[in-house]
């Protein structure tokens, strides 16, 4: 039975087999990020969305410069543009001209273009900061719940349920109602913005938290976590070095999808009058004022409406594209 072992092709050292089979033009040093970028670049829709997002961010950042070049200060009244009898803007299309690109507001005659540009600052600022708050809390809680499991998971998961059941809008209105003019060393608009960021960010973290928890649950079972443990790595090391890098993709994707939700929420709060105080320009506030003039000055409503719509759409398109690019399961 024990025949001598004569193996013809085996007289070489153990060699890695793959050098020969690589062939082709494939660059084997490419990181996953680079591959994702290649795929994203092919996605025209996502790239358009991304470009618009970048444009809006630049607009928000350079608002004073843009307005000084193309318009009038956002809170400056231009009574000469208003028909004194009707209170509506004079001239065609709600006063649109080279001087006032999007026309002027009824009654006050404020320049709509500059108010949209300044409104972008508030929307983007609150959208980004609130998302940041949600992501930081959500990632932290989610990764801890998913990794440790047991009673920690049960506790955090119930906490998430409670937060999700919270009547956020009512709470926001009540809180803003009882707010003093100055608190925590902040006052007026700075305080208002801080409160909005806190409310929106602090109550939205369970959405991210649940996703991160789920991802962590499946990552935790992977063998590389066991391998790391058998090397003697601490829990903290595993969380930071093994799990977190794998969570970057979902965090990025859900952040881009959460920002537009938060922008909408801020707009809704401003619309209801519990957002940033007038006369500071916000998209939601402008919409709410425009409601009374929807027939006489439709451009007043259209401008902030379109601004919100396009920004939110752009974020969502970009986020979807990002998810597809980062997810190895989708085939391009």
């Amino acid at each position, binding site marked *: 039975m024990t025949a001598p072992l004569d193996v013809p092709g085996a007289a070489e050292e153990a060699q890695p087999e793959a050098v020969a089979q690589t062939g082709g033009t494939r660059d084997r040093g490419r990181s996953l990020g680079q591959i994702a970028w290649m795929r994203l670049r092919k996605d025209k829709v996502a790239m358009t969305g991304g470009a618009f997002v970048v444009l809006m961010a630049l607009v928000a950042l350079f608002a004073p410069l843009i307005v000084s070049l193309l318009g009038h200060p956002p809170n400056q009244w231009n009574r000469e543009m208003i028909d004194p009898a009707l209170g509506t803007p004079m001239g065609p299309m709600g006063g649109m001209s080279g001087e006032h690109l999007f026309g002027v507001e009824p009654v006050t005659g404020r320049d709509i273009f500059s108010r949209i540009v300044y409104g972008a600052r508030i929307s983007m600022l609150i959208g980004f900061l609130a998302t940041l708050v949600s992501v930081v809390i959500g990632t932290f809680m989610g990764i801890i719940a998913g990794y440790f499991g047991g009673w920690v998971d049960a506790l955090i998961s119930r906490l998430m349920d409670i937060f999700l059941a919270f009547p956020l809008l009512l709470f926001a209105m009540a809180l803003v109602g009882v707010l003093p003019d100055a608190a925590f060393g902040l006052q007026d608009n700075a305080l208002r913005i801080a409160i909005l960021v806190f409310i929106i960010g602090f109550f939205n973290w369970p959405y991210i938290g649940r996703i991160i928890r789920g991802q962590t649950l499946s990552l935790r079972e992977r063998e590389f976590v*066991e391998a790391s443990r058998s090397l*003697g790595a601490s829990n903290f090391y595993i969380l930071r*070095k093994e799990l977190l890098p794998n969570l970057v993709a979902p965090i990025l994707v859900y952040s881009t999808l959460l920002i537009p939700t938060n922008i909408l929420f801020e707009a809704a709060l401003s619309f209801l009058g519990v957002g940033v105080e007038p006369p500071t320009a916000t998209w939601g506030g402008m919409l709410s004022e425009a409601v009374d003039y929807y027939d006489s000055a439709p451009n007043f409503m259209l401008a902030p409406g379109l601004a919100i719509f396009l920004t939110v759409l752009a974020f969502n398109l970009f986020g979807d594209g990002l998810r597809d690019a980062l997810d190895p399961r989708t085939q391009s």
Partner: protein
Amino acid sequence: MTDPVVSVSDLRITFPTLEGRITAVNGISFDVPAGGAVGIVGESGSGKSATSLALMGLHRGTNAEVTGDITVVGKNLATATDGQVRNMRGNDIAMVFQDPMSSLHPQYTIGNQLIEAYKVHRPEASSADARKRAVESLDRVGIPNAAKRINSYPHEFSGGMRQRALIAMGLMCDPTVLLADEITTALDVTVQAQILDLLDDLRSDLGMSLILVSHDLAVVAGSVDEVLVMQNGDIVERGDVRRVLSSPEHPYTKSLLAAVPRVDVSRAQRRAQVRAERTQSAPRGLSAQAKKALKAKAARQAAAVEDESAQQRTGATAKPEKSAESAEQPLLSVRNARMRFKVRGGLLGRASDFYAVDDVSFDLHQGETLGIVGESGSGKSTLSRMITRLLTPTSGQIVFEGRDITRLPEYKLRPLRRDIQMIFQNPYSSLNPRVTIGDSIGAGLRVQGESNTKEIQRKVQELLERVGLEASHYNRFPHAFSGGQRQRIAIARALILRPKLVICDEPVSALDVSTQDQVLRLLDELQDDFDLTYIFVAHDLAVVRQVSDRVAVMRKGEVVELNDSDTVYEAPQHDYTRELLAAAPVLDPVEAKKHRAQRAELRRQSTAA
């Protein structure tokens, strides 16, 4: 001979990828005669699965581009309409898929799924007829009490039974050809043998043709008449299975055959040979001194082999070398180890105890390799995780170098982790996809307190070269490497701390045969160079024999047999070991037939008893 039932000519299949079109199948032609059995063998990426999907017309509506002619029972697939192709599937050619766990719908009973398969093609058949047929079919594939089990859901079936049910589904419409794509890959050896026996019976009883696709030459050996060997989309060799396996012509077939681990080759033979080859081929990076040492070792080993065979001839059984060793203190000693899991189930979700590892004891000496074989669920992985203390045993003791480590807390365990390392089964999930391989390998040094980044990099690169990769691979991510290369990386990670004991948990079961052989050689070489002690866990009997000095056979959490490797394989004491050995696929078709008869005999005995 009659007309072939399947005829493929100049089949070419390409897929689009980010890097342009790749060719999966590159103009192959073959025929399957009526009632004949053809095996398609190749490693992953050879195009065998793309071919079998093409036979079923399953590339329709995908990105794949298929050219060439496929004729199945007189119908040309290239010109057939979608309706004709649907009618052909199941009626003329039925396919059984690889994964019995995911190929059955979990929400329908087995019976429903069988009946559906029948009624799609025979809409005029009455429900009672279809049901009767389903029971017959289940009975045919050896499901006991078929009339009752037909109402079971897939989760109530074991893996082997599900695969049987899938075959039964394939048989519902009396197909002329049965196409089996890697149907035994997910199954244990004993179950695999049963399924292959079943296919053989069906073929002779029903006169079906069989196309058996597999990466494993030994699986194909006993079940087909003709074999096609595929490599990179081409058929490189074809012919009668006995001829191809006994005197292969193409170098690829030769190397494939050479790489298949053989259950009849002992550890000593293999090691002596590997060492001899190493000294001959004068490996780079090895000092003259090391070479001399190796040569001496090889010579000693060769002498030992001769000694042993001489002893066997004279009937002597004494092992002087072993008795000297066992006087020393064992490196690792496992005593009465048990691992209990709570299993929920039954009424009110009451938890019951389940012992994954039950009262296991053994000693392991420095430089030795202990093989642990067993089928899935035998507790071998649990045992290896207990030894690395990834799991804490419920009771019993684990003593490493005279120190009881059974209940050491994690912080006291950390320095000990240097000495006991583990190589994991799946090189795809054991490497973090978002961490460069340099960081993955260096992690061990970092968590053990080394903070000099240059030093870490130097050590990692040195080791990378030692395991057959390049130092320049340091900053690459795992996805840039093949399965075999990844397993080399995983090995480097386990060795970076210079452990004394390495537990290899199925280190080659996810790899192709030729890669498997290279990784096993590497492990052998490293054992010599770093003076390692291995625990080698695997389900493949042949692999375990070739690497182990002693072998423990596990079943249902217990070690049923523990002895010298040669004794276990040549004079097995326990019935279960004998059963396992009879089920192991063998390369020689004649031998395979003998084993099949032997299995039939064993079954008859057990049913009679």
